């Protein structure tokens, strides 16, 4: 984004001078060309080089979440101001009667710890309030702040979809012009939670094709800015799991953090968003989770083969696997 931003920087001068803007890619030269056709016959061309990569795709059905809140960004912004910027995580605690946003740390505080803050927001401040059960989810504060800044610019209400701790949550903005979904991981509570993800994931896989279709529809309605930015992913610097016959899929360790299923596409991925969620201490629970994730991984990959024939399922391809060459599924969108 850093190369694109300066091109569109002076909004005023753009509005005054530019009559038409043309954006196209030239794949043989690996360039995105942005051309401004300005007044007086002036034509300004910017060539931005790109590198092919395939982003992580998230499988997450936000409409299946039992809890949903819709709130104006301004209200959330007021809450966010209360927390000091050194807070890494923030907890959202909901009951059918109230919503509380609080800083999340239970350790005994010494003088230099940051202040514990909490704010209660009444249900009447929300545009939509649906709470299935009392829940507390903890997620990355920095991601929330970033997303808030974005939504304040669009003036659209934010919808928060979430379930139980450990299951990912979605912050979405649905405007006339764009739909944005930020999927964040939430901190899992106890090891016993580990049992729920597999069924969740498998059923989500079936829904995945629906999700992809809905994305397609959006792109047809003109300006599409569907961004599925995987927000907060806890990645352990673990060696990649290599499964020689199958796709190289790297599921991040489910270590004290429930994460959405990520299908890692290629080793050449430029960056994976690193989260600032700190690893809490490794207890006996985490090794349990780790063992668990290996078993689960096996179950998923056997199903995956069926999806290889779908053109869109170019998600999990290993660059050196013969199988994928034969499939002909390539990483084009």
């Amino acid at each position: 984004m850093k190369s694109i931003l300066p091109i569109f920087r002076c909004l005023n001068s753009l509005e005054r001078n530019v009559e038409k803007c043309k954006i196209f890619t030239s794949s043989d030269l690996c360039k995105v060309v942005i051309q401004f056709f300005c007044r007086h016959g002036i034509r300004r061309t910017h060539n931005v080089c790109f590198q092919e990569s395939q982003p992580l795709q998230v499988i997450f059905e936000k409409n299946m979440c039992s809890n949903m809140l819709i709130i104006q960004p301004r209200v959330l912004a007021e809450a966010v101001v209360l927390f000091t910027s050194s807070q890494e995580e923030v907890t959202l605690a909901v009951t059918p009667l109230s919503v509380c946003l609080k800083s999340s740390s239970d350790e005994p505080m010494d003088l230099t710890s940051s202040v514990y803050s909490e704010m209660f927001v009444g249900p009447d401040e929300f545009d939509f309030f649906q709470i299935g059960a009392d829940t507390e989810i903890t997620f990355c504060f920095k991601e929330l702040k970033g997303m808030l800044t974005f939504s304040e610019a669009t003036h659209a209400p934010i919808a928060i979809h979430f379930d139980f701790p450990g299951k990912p949550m979605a912050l979405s903005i649905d405007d006339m012009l764009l739909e944005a979904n930020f999927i964040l991981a939430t901190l899992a509570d106890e090891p016993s939670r580990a049992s729920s993800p597999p069924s969740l994931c498998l059923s989500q896989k079936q829904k995945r094709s629906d999700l992809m279709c809905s994305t397609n529809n959006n792109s047809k309605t003109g300006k599409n800015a569907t961004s599925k930015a995987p927000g907060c992913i806890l990645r352990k610097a673990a060696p990649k799991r290599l499964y020689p016959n199958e796709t190289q899929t790297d599921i991040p360790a489910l270590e004290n953090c429930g994460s959405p299923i990520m299908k890692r596409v290629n080793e050449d991925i430029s960056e994976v968003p690193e989260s600032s969620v700190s690893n809490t201490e490794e207890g006996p629970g985490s090794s349990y989770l780790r063992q668990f994730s290996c078993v689960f991984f096996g179950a998923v990959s056997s199903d995956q083969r069926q999806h290889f024939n779908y053109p869109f399922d170019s998600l999990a391809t290993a660059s050196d696997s013969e199988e994928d060459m034969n499939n002909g599924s390539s990483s084009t969108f």
Partner: protein
Amino acid sequence: MKFRAKIMDAACLNHFTWVSAMIAKLAKTCTLRISPQKLNFILSDKVANGGVSMWCELEQENFFSEFQVEGVSAENKAISLELMLENLSQALKTAWNARALKIKLTNKHSPCLTVSIELLSVSSSSRIVTYDIPVKVIPRKLWKDLQEPTVPVSDVSIYLPVLKTMKSIVEKMKNISNHLIIEANLSGELNLKIETELATHFKDLGNPPSASEDASQDRDPEQMAEVHVDIQKLLQFLAGQQVNPTKAVCNIVSNKTVHFDLLHEDVSLQYFIPAFS
């Protein structure tokens, strides 16, 4: 040990926020002493503070509509807490539009000052914000360090010029030298000098009537009493004074200490800077 207090008035709340912001500029950590009549912010002259000490006092009834404090035992009616002022100041700043503010001492996982603010939000439903500021309770055996400092017998006492002016001058001087000389006499003249012969002279400041009659009578009104101080410490003090105080007095003990005694409406602040050694 118990402490609960409530502020209901917006003006009082603003004033208290202002006081805590001012103290936060003067020290990072300090001791808050809560007694039935008064609140004190104390910085004692330890080496860690660079020898600087501070004593700020305010009458609780000028701020709080409800105030209740109980010490450890019946005769010790005070509580002394150590806290980071920035935390308190930040918490109070959110309260600028609050309907009510409650402070109490709690012990959740560790002792905290819980500040509970009732905000009136835009949609006119009230919102409750709570902060838990970590504090350290200071045991009674260390209370001897927290006594009100005795005002030293000074050689010269003089009223200060407008503090903002003083601050901008000292700020320019700090680029040239590490320490400066404050000198004053009983004819209302105050000079700020640094060694490369750069000096600023203030005249006609006036001298307060001195406490010890005989000492001042012997003194030649033109004779300057001087003290060398670290510029940074002086600057830190001046930077905390955004508003010009109702009364500002500077007491100089030659080559020992300079003592600033300020009164901001109903809040008194005393600040001691030792001589440069």
